[in-house]
């Protein structure tokens, strides 16, 4: 199944440190020769300041060779740099952590700077020391420390480039320490920052084409990076999948996926399948909507990217070929199981995928042979029956479907939608939309668009 492994595609879009977990995962699932992976790990660690880790990897890789001397020098160097940077940063940190100061800090960054300068003689360079130290800590693996320093830096700094860089650093640190809530928050602020203006690319993220200074292009780059990084968060945070759908399906990010990284569609598809059940109730119809949308995108990008997960959705919702869908599902199970992000959700995925199949199946058919359906779902006859009963109980078609045990079939009678109801459906949104139009027009008249009036209206409804 190595051909469906995305690790190699994803790595170029991740930070060096984020790649470690990916590689560790590869070692575990043994898709690639262990030696190769170890070598990759070593190459990766060599360039960081995590000297001890690199050395241990080296020893694992070449048990009979002496550890190169450069490591010792590097270690020393790192220690001294650490010392120096820490001293620089400590001065500022002392001031900031002073509760009195913390109280008098305001929203306005410039004012804060002024204040700090007047009272505590803290200059801009000193604040930058925070950034440097944070970055250095990150480079030798002290992620939580890095997160702290970068946070403080971001509060104070006014330099947009460095702030952006600090954002990315903080996000990476949060991801690596596994604080998903914080990471999620960070992710959202970062996303806002990227969307709000055409940002400069953080230095470490600059792709080889950074010579092109087209702001649209850099924004595309940042978004691509954000998409990849957010995978870490979204597939670990409990609410992640729904949020993933929200983010990735927003037009700007959907565009980014289509233009620069179609392989993200796998995660989008998986998330759509996964959130089918977890979000019954209020969200269900939106999720179905999301599946439709994703199927459209998958269809459109088929020539660029396809794998069992996307093919499953395509076969199910475009071709309505249940046999092929079932086959794809079988392969998708492996793919999902081997994927770094999805491996946790394999059973969930299978469960939900079955639901999707049977739901579609039931909607199209009037009379279904239970044995046949069980086969479609890769289940034994007994299990299949249970499953179907559960399905009928849970979904809305409870009233319409009846099981005839004698013939071993399900009969579904779906009364046609009365005309009046379909008219109501059709016209339901019109009043609201017209209202929105009106509001927009009045807003257009007042030269600077007023603050968001409409969400309030939404809530009111």
């Amino acid at each position: 199944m190595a051909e469906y492994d995305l690790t190699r595609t994803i790595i170029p879009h991740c930070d060096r440190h984020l790649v470690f977990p990916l590689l560790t995962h590869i070692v575990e699932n043994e898709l690639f020769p262990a030696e190769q992976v170890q070598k990759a790990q070593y190459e990766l660690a060599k360039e960081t300041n995590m000297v001890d880790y690199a050395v241990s990897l080296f020893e694992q890789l070449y048990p009979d060779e002496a550890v190169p001397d450069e490591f010792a020098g590097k270690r020393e160097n790192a220690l001294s740099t650490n010392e120096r940077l820490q001293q620089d940063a400590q001065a500022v940190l002392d001031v900031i952590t002073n509760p009195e100061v913390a109280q008098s800090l305001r929203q306005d960054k410039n004012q804060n700077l002024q204040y700090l300068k007047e009272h505590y003689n803290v200059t801009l360079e000193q604040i930058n020391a925070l950034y440097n130290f944070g970055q250095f800590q990150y480079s030798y693996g002290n992620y939580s420390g890095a997160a702290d320093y970068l946070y403080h830096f971001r509060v104070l700094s006014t330099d947009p480039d460095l702030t952006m860089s600090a954002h990315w650093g903080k996000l990476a640190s949060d991801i690596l320490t596994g604080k998903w809530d914080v990471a999620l928050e960070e992710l959202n602020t970062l996303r806002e920052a990227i969307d709000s203006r055409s940002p400069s690319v953080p230095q470490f993220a600059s792709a080889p084409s950074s010579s092109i200074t087209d702001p649209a292009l850099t924004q595309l780059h940042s978004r691509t990076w954000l998409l990849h990084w957010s995978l870490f968060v979204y597939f670990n945070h409990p609410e992640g999948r729904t949020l993933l759908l929200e983010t990735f399906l927003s037009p700007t990010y959907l565009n980014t996926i289509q233009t620069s990284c179609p392989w993200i569609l796998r995660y989008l598809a998986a998330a759509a399948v996964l959130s089918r059940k977890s979000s019954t109730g209020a969200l269900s119809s939106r999720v179905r909507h999301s599946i439709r949308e994703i199927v459209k995108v998958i269809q459109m990008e088929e020539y660029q990217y396809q794998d069992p997960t996307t093919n499953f959705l395509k076969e199910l919702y475009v071709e309505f070929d249940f046999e092929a869908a079932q086959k794809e599902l079988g392969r998708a199970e492996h793919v999902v199981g081997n994927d770094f992000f999805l491996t946790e959700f394999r059973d969930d995925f299978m469960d939900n995928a079955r639901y999707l199949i049977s739901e579609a199946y039931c909607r199209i058919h009037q009379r279904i042979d239970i044995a046949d359906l069980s086969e479609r779902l890769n289940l034994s006859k007994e299990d299949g029956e249970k499953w179907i009963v559960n399905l009928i109980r849970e979904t809305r078609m409870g009233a319409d479907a009846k099981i005839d045990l004698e013939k071993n079939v399900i009969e579904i009678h779906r009364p046609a939608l009365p005309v009046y109801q379909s008219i109501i459906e059709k016209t339901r949104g019109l009043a609201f939309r017209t209202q929105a139009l009106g509001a927009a027009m009045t807003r257009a008249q007042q030269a600077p668009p007023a603050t968001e009036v409409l969400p309030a209206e939404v809530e009111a409804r």
Partner: protein
Amino acid sequence: MSSDDEGAPKAPAAKPAMSRFLRTAGSDSDSSDEEKSDSEEESEVSQEEGQAEQRRSRFLRTDIDDDASDEDVTRVVKSARDKRLEEMEACGKTMDNALKINDWVAISNEFDRLVRMVQRQQNVSEPVPPFYIRQLVNLESALNTAVAKEKEAKKKMNASNARALNGMRQKVKKVTKEFEADIKRFQTDPDAFEREYTAVVAPEAAPAPRPRARRAAESEEEGAEDDAFTTVGKGGKAMAFTPESIFKNLQLVQEARGKKNTDRQEQIRVLEKLLAVAVTSYQRIRVLLTLISARFDYNSSVATHVPIDLWVNAQSEVDQLIGIIMREPQYVIQEITEDYDELAERTPETEKDGIVRIRGSVISFVDRLDDEFTKSLQNIDPHGTEYVDRLKDEKGLYCTICRSQALYEKTNSDDPLGRVIMRRLEHIYSKPDAVVHALESTVAASDIKPSIVLDVEGQTSSLIHSLSIHLYKSSNSFLRTRAMLCHIYHYALHNDFHTARDMLLMSHLQESIYSADVATQILYNRTVVQLGLSAFRCGLIKEAQATLQDICATQRVKELLAQGVHQQRFQVLSPEQEKAERQRQLPFHMHINTELLEAAFLVSSMLVEIPLLASIDSEDQKRKAISKPFRRLLDFADRQIFTGPPESTRDHIMQASKALQNGEWEKCRDLIQSIKIWSLMPECNSVKEMLAKRIQEDGLRTYLFTYAPHYTTLSLSLLSRTFSLPLRTVTSIVSKMIWSEELSASLDQAAGVVVFHRIELSRTQQLALSLADKVNNMVEQNEKTLDNKLGPAATWNDRGDGAKGAKGGEQAAERRRGGERRGGGARGGGRGRGARFAQGLGNQMTGAQRNR
């Protein structure tokens, strides 16, 4: 005008000649055969006449001395300044004449001419000739007397004459003011003034009287001593063209250029001979530059093309020119150079930085060559052998273009390099691989190669790609646009529909193409059409239909593709418009076959439209047509009382459509496949197969739509047999129709049948439904209008990205999302294709929501 080596010592000799010349200014050889009789003033000018006579006789003698054979080409050729002087004098003469008969209108005109000439004289920083000053003084006095006379005898002058007189007074007053000082000096001592002038002019004038016909070189030395007019020796023609005289001859040719009665052919002959005797590279370059332009000058009218043999020669000469410059980098041809002496030989040693810069432009030659090639193809009958023969020259032309590309790559000149690459790209973008390979092989065989060439087994698309990439980097947006279109066209030609489509959408050209120039618009149309055809070849019927729709629906396909002039029904083109139109036409070998295009469009329309027609049940919905032209044709075909066997492509398709409507898919397939034009498609067979499959599927859909009301159940296996489709495909198609609610039915798996649930709607219900639809449309229209009005920047529908307000009511949130997506297309602008897709998607999604 600084003299060359031999100029200086001869100066004193020239001096008396000059002054004598000037004294006789009033009349000279050409003015003597003026038509106007000047009998009255004969007495006054008799002295001068006498002198002229004398001179003329000497002149004549030389003519007789000359060998009689080329009498006709014997012309007195003077230096530029002398000629100007002569012209001025002729002008003065006419003025004098007019003065005699009191024709002030003529005087006024002549005077204007004179003033202009003097101005030109001053522009080249030569002193004002005394003749002019004298003329001014004379005029002034004549004016005064005329005015005085006028007062006495009022009735004599007509209105226009009087007006001219007054005008002259003003003008003369103005001009005399300008030359006040000169006039004063002249008046005090005319002779001294004249002497002064000759003193200034003489040293420079030395070489001026020298050139004399084409054979001046030999007899030059004696000639110069002898009274400024060369006695032409008996030396043969071969003698006349020596390396030393090249520059003089060149200058002669250049001066004669553009004159009315210059014999162009003769000039070309002269230049060819000059080229044969040219020794140094400098000479060769100079001669070549002149020769090539002379060849292009051959035709004076814009409409006709340069004769082919001349073109071929010019092409080989451009090659030669490029070869010289490439071999000897110390010679450079530039469009703008410092002034240099046209007559002197120059070598790298004589120049300051060791580089000889020569005025000229290779790129303009290449441009012209290419344009002339196209022009000749436009004028040759495309069905004759001549056309094919002419096409063979493209190889050489392509080679020349590549050579010039190599030249500009070497000199690092971006602008011409871009232009030349564009030319190259335009020669290959629409050609099949084999032709491109043939063209490229000649380049590979040439001694001068550009950096980008195609290997023997290389992919043409990689060549096109690298050429286009080069142009994308150029600063010229015009070139970028064209390169983009050529690139897309090429992808489409190679059936890479997805890449081509993505590139076209990402380029956002469709938004700005309306403001582009006509040629680019034509290229755009071609690209779009080719894209549609490629979609058709790939079996993407819907896409093909949608892409071709815009162009094919206009009924002006030929005009839009520049493949023929459209007959306007209501307005008649002015001759200029028609001429311009003709000049835009593409040469025949680049045409996209319009019949094939029409067939592709109509067939894809048929496959889209017929199932749609079948699915419509109310009269009201019938008006919604995807392809209006197809619908029109179909209606027309329906009205026919009697239909014979199909003849044209259209007939075939119309009868096939009817067969499809009736569920006779086999007949439909046979009809479609028997269309002959398909054979023009490279993948004819696979296209036919694809069409057969699509006809089966769409036949099934049509059948279901049409006959569903008459059945309660329908067996799947029967369907599969009728349409000879695998059961699985039938099930899949039916399921799709059920899922998308096109068909109100469900499958009975146990019995293997489709069960139809049909509800008959009452009239009121129908009306209510259509009313709801209309209201929906209206709201949508309003939203679009507002979107347009607020511009792409204002996204009124965008309310905080939807993420935050997720807790809002489900319905609202959903709808908001739809709205957001609609606005999102505009907001996401700049990120290309995705934005557009999302936009389209958004609209569909909202539609889907509403239907639910």
